[in-house]
C-alpha cells in the first residue's frame, strides 16, 4: 500500500518536474553563444578580428588627445587590399559606434548616407508638403574637421601542413584643412593553422 502510494507520489513529482516553466522551446543541438567569445573556427578573417581591430583603434584614437571638443569627423571606407571578402564597412561602423559612445567625436554624413541626406533635404524644401517652421534649412550641414581613412592588407602563405595568414589594419586621421595626418595607428594579427 505504502509502496503504491509513494510510487504515485513519485510519478506526480516527475510529471510536475517536466512541466516546470522554462523559457526554452525545443533546441537540443542549438544554443546561443557568447557573441564576445574568441572565434577560432577557421583562420579566415572572423568576428574576433573585427572586434579586436575596432576596439584597439577606437581606444587608441580616443585616448590620443587629438579629438578636442568632439570635432566632426568624416569616415571613409576602409580600403580592402586583401583577396578575401571582408566587409570593411562593418569595421568602420564599429569604430564609429564606439567613438560615438565614448563621446569623443561626431560624424558627418559619409559617402553612403550622403545621398539619403540630400534627398531628404530636397524633399523637405522643394516638395511644399511640410510646415514651414519644421523644415530643415539648407546650407546648415556641418563640414568635417577631420577625415578618417584606412586600409587592410594580408599576406597568406601555405604549405602542405601550415596555413599562415597575416593581417595588417591601419587607420589615420587627417586634418582636412591642413592635410596633415594627426594620428595614425595599426593593428597586426597573425593566425596559423596546422594540419
Amino acid at each position, binding site marked *: 500500500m505504502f509502496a503504491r502510494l509513494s510510487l504515485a507520489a513519485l510519478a506526480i513529482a516527475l510529471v510536475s518536474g517536466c512541466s516546470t516553466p522554462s523559457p526554452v522551446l525545443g533546441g537540443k543541438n542549438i544554443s546561443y553563444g557568447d557573441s564576445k567569445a574568441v572565434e577560432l573556427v*577557421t583562420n579566415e578573417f572572423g568576428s574576433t578580428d573585427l572586434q579586436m581591430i575596432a576596439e584597439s583603434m577606437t581606444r587608441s584614437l580616443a585616448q590620443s588627445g587629438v579629438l578636442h571638443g568632439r570635432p566632426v569627423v568624416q569616415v571613409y*571606407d576602409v580600403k*580592402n587590399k586583401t583577396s578575401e571578402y*571582408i566587409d570593411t564597412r562593418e569595421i568602420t561602423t564599429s569604430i564609429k559606434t564606439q567613438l560615438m559612445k565614448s563621446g569623443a567625436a561626431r560624424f558627418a554624413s559619409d559617402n553612403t548616407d550622403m545621398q539619403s541626406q540630400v534627398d531628404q533635404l530636397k524633399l523637405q524644401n522643394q516638395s511644399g508638403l511640410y510646415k514651414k517652421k519644421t523644415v530643415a534649412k539648407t546650407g546648415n550641414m556641418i563640414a568635417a574637421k577631420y577625415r578618417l581613412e584606412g586600409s587592410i592588407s594580408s599576406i597568406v602563405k601555405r604549405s602542405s601542413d601550415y596555413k599562415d595568414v597575416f593581417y595588417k589594419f591601419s587607420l589615420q586621421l587627417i586634418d582636412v584643412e591642413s592635410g596633415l595626418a594627426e594620428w595614425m595607428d595599426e593593428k597586426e594579427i597573425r593566425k596559423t593553422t596546422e594540419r
Partner: protein
Amino acid sequence: MVSRALTLATLVAAVQLTGCSVFRSYDSELQETNKQLAAGNVDAALALLESNNKGDKKDLLYYFEKGELLRSKGDLKGSQDAWRSADSVVFQWEESVKLDTDKYLSQFGSYLVNDKVRRYEGYDYEKVMLTTQMALNLLAQNDFDGARTEIKKTHEREAIIAELRDKEYLKREEEAEKEGIKTEYKDLQGYPVASLDAPEVVGLKNSYQSAFSHYLSGYVYEALGEKGLAAPGYRKAAELRPNTPLLDQALLELDKNSAKAGESDVLIVVQTGLAPARDSIRIPLPLPIQDNLVITPLSFPIIREDTSTAHLSEIQLNDKVLALTALNSTTAMSRRALRDDMPGIILRTSVRAISRGVAQKNLNQTNPMAGLVVGIASTVLEGADTRTWRTLPNETQVARVRLKQGEHHVSLPSSLGGTQVTVKVDRPYQVVSLRVVGNRVFAGGPSVEVAPQAAATAVASLK
C-alpha cells in the same frame, strides 16, 4: 545454402536497383531536351524534362535543368523558384558537410556501390554556377540587393567546398596507399588522356572557382557602392585568370571616379552553348584477384564537348564591333573536376571489381548457376556515372561599356543568325545577359527585347 542466399540477395538487389536511376540514361534524355532548346522550342524541351521526371521526388538535376530552361523562356520568376529548390538541396549538403566532415568523407569513399546509384549531389562547379546564374536572373530585373545575397552565398559556399576537397584529397591518398592501387589515369590504355591534360584544364586553379563569378560579385558590390568588397572580387578573378586586361582594368577603375552624368556602366554577359556530356568508356585493366592478374574491363567516365553552338568572340553594339572577354568555360571546369576525381574513381572501381571477382570465382567453384546471376547483375550495374547539369551554359563572356542612357542595339554575328537585341539602359549600373544556343538568342527581363527570330523549327521525335 549460403550460395543460395547470396543468389537471392543479388537478385533482390538487382530488381530493386532497376527501380532507380541505374537504367536511366541521363545522356540520351538530355540530348533530346537540348535539341529542342537549340531549335527554339523551349516549351517542348520543358515538356520533355517533365515527362522524364514523373516521380514525386524530384532530384537536384531536375531543378538545375528546369531553372535554366525557364530562364531561356524568359520566365525569370519560375526559373528562380526552380533554382531555389535546387539551392535548398545544395544547402542541405552544405550543412551535412559542415556538421560532420569526416562522416561525409567516409561515406563518399564507400566501395560497395557504383557512383551512378548514389544520390546526385551536383559537381562543385555546378553548385557555384547555380547561385551565379540566380544572381544573373535577379540582375536582369535590376535587383542588385537580391543579387548581393546570392553572390555572398556563392563565395561562402566556395570556401566550404575548398576546405572539404582539401581534406578529401588527403584522405584519398592515404586510402589508395592502404589498398595498394597505384593506377593513375595516365595508365589507362585507350583513355583520352590529352583531354584532361589540356592547358586550359591544367591552368585552372581548381574545378570550382569561377573567374566570372568573382568578377560579377565585384561588379555588384561596386554598383552598391561597397568598394571594400568589390576589390577582392576583381582581385580573385584576376588571380584565377591572370593576364586578362578586363580584370586588371576593373581593379584600376575602382578607385577612380569617372562616372559622368547621364552615362551608365553596363556589363554585357553573353553565355553560349551547353555544358559537356559525361559518357562511359570501357577500358580493360589488370587486377589482382586471388593472387592472379586478371584483365577486367572497367567503365570510366569521359567528357564529351557540346557542338551545338559555334564559338563567339565578338558582338556588334550599335554597329560597332565589341570584343568579348571569356571568363568561364564549363567544359574546362568539368574536365578539371573529372581530372581531380579520377584517382578516386579508379580506386573505387578497382576495389569493387576485385571484390566482385573474388566472389564470382568462389561461387563458380560451388554453384555455377549463382555465379552466372552475379555476373549478369554486375554487368548491369557497371557503367560510369553520366549525370551532370547539361543545360548550363558552356562559355561565359563579358564586355563592359559606358553607354548613354537610352536605347541601344546589340546584334550577334551573322554566322550565328545575326539576331538583333534592343537594350534599354536606364540605370547607373546595369547588367544585360544574353543566352545563345545554336543560333538562337534568349534573354529575359524588363530592359531587353529580342527581335523576332525565325519560327522555331519542329524537331522530330516529339512524343
